């Protein structure tokens, strides 16, 4: 009796859920749209505006080229990314514009797509297998931070105390940025790092960590932040304690807000990455692949440009 009851109730749940699924699936019921070849945009996270720009630019370009586009959010979870790949292979996508969650962990997913003859174009982040993806369009965080480090040394007059705010300690980008920076800065013994703390690429956490660092080291002259959100948080903490004039803030990403603050002289410099360029290049490649082209450069580095007070006027958006 009890099993019968459960059977019926779970059955009825399905009948409620099915129409709901159709309701939310939207365009997939639309026959006209379904005829267009579909391109998948798999992005590591949509929890960060920078990646939202990357994913949306890719999807928009794909649509402009006459394809259907769908964005998959891996939520920084390689296992979820695997599910996305399995689904998109099964449902007949013609190409993947891919922002990997992990340089090593994502290799298997790309190989799986390759085995199914679906081309994969990596954007921004590299995977440690040169053969699996059709092409990789990469932002060179390391070199970007090397030049940022060089400018840092110059602005600090080769001496003084500084703090570093790291991103997520388990993230590739965190360390490639930090290593690029230190490859230059560590050669100057008078530049002393008094604190190195993580703030998870998060503005609020960066502000709180910076507040605490300033308690222990109010005499620092500079702070290097692994992304612009943390640079903004650090600046907020400096402003609140009245140290914003004596501490130089360096960020990375090229966020609009930070570019504006560089012009106002509140933040020193940031590394400008070009998510739109990377996304559109990947979309164009997918289009060319579909039309028969097969020889793509395996790696295309997209240089990171340094934005500082002397050149900031080139980066201000004109409305």
């Amino acid at each position: 009796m009890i099993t019968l009851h459960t059977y019926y109730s779970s059955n009825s749940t399905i009948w409620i859920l099915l129409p709901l699924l159709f309701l939310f699936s939207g365009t997939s019921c639309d026959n006209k749209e379904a005829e267009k070849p579909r391109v998948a945009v798999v992005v590591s996270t949509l929890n960060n505006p920078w990646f939202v720009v990357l994913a949306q630019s890719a999807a928009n370009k794909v649509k402009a080229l006459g394809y259907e586009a769908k964005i998959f959010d891996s939520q920084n979870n390689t296992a979820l990314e695997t599910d996305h790949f399995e689904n998109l292979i099964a449902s007949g996508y013609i190409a993947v514009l891919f922002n990997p969650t992990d340089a090593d962990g994502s290799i298997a997913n790309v190989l799986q797509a390759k085995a199914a003859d679906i081309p994969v174009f990596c954007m921004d982040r590299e995977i440690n297998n040169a053969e699996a993806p059709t092409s990789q369009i990469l932002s060179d965080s390391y070199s970007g931070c090397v030049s940022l480090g060089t400018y840092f040394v110059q602005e600090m007059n080769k001496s003084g105390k500084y703090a570093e705010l790291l991103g997520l300690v388990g993230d590739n980008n965190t360390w490639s940025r930090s290593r690029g920076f230190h490859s230059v800065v560590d050669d100057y013994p008078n530049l002393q790092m008094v604190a190195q703390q993580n703030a998870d690429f998060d503005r609020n956490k960066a502000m709180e960590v910076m507040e605490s660092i300033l308690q222990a080291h109010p005499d620092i002259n500079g702070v290097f932040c692994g992304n612009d959100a943390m640079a903004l948080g650090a600046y907020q903490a400096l402003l609140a304690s009245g140290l914003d004039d004596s501490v130089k803030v360096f960020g990375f990403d090229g966020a609009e807000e930070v570019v504006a603050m560089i012009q106002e002289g509140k933040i020193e410099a940031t590394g400008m990455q070009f998510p739109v360029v990377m996304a559109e290049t990947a979309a164009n490649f997918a289009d060319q692949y579909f039309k028969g082209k097969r020889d793509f450069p395996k790696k295309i580095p997209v240089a990171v440009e340094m934005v500082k007070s002397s050149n900031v006027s080139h980066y201000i958006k004109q409305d």
Partner: protein
Amino acid sequence: MITDTSTQQPEITKSEPAKTPSNNTAKDFRHYLVKFQSLIALFLLCAVIGLLSDNFFTVANGWNVMRQISVNICISVGMTLVILTGGIDLSVGSVLAFSGAVTAGLLSAGIELPAFDLFIGFTLLGGIIVGMATGSILGAFNGWTITRFRVPPFVATLAMLTIARGLTMLWTNGFPISGLGEGFVTIGTGWFLGIPVPVWISAVVVVSFMMITTKTKLGRYIYAIGGNENAARLSGINIKKVKIIVYSLAGGLAAVGGLIVTARLNSAQPNAGFSYELDAIAAVVIGGTSLSGGRGTILGTVLGAIIIGVLNNGLVLLDVSPFWQQVVKGIVILLAVIIDKSSSKNQ
């Protein structure tokens, strides 16, 4: 402000017979040790950090810590109420993000309804009230699914965790909402009578909910439901109503936290409040509240939040490696619960 943490419990939870005064001094000593365990832990922690760092015992750092924990205090007070009823609320971090984003969106852009050719602008107070109402409504929805459909609180609020995060993304399009005006920013960065505004807010929250839990019917009902839900139902308490109120309060308090976070940054971040529910649960547990409900105090939770705040602050002051920080925090939580378990056995 800091007094006995375990005698705050209302009559109704004292199911065991009144303790007879003990002649044994060792037993007496242990009794006090148990009573003030959170406080003792906090003093020990402060003493150790103070010895190792000259910058810990400064007025500026004190305000720093208090300001930083104000958000967690608001959330954990709500979490305490929920846990006292034997439930849990995993959605507070997402609810915080959504209410903060709603307030920020209304303050910066208002609402446009092109279909009706209508534009609604919001004053500071209007934006704040709608933000807090948003949090309370999401909380009430939690309470409704839990009581109406008997969804376990863990599952119902886990669902709300992703729903509210998704709503935040929809509302913000994944981008921060900035530029909220001087008046609003005062909530996060201002000072009043020499004390930071966020600290005032959390103090008001703590005092009012101490009153509610100890002096009102609602408070006694909350303890009664957590102590023995069937007995509470048989004695005529409207369990559904109390639970919906409790989850609404938790959502509303998360919204207050959201206001503070948003105002401090002058910007609503789409990923704000990520994993804050865990900090709140940790504060409640360290504060000696039983996860099975019916036993615990608001003041204990405040002590728990202060311990976490001091730990976060101290580990950065001492420039402890970020890898070790996570290990240390985990061990502190574990120790707190182990001590609590063994002490409740001794009682």
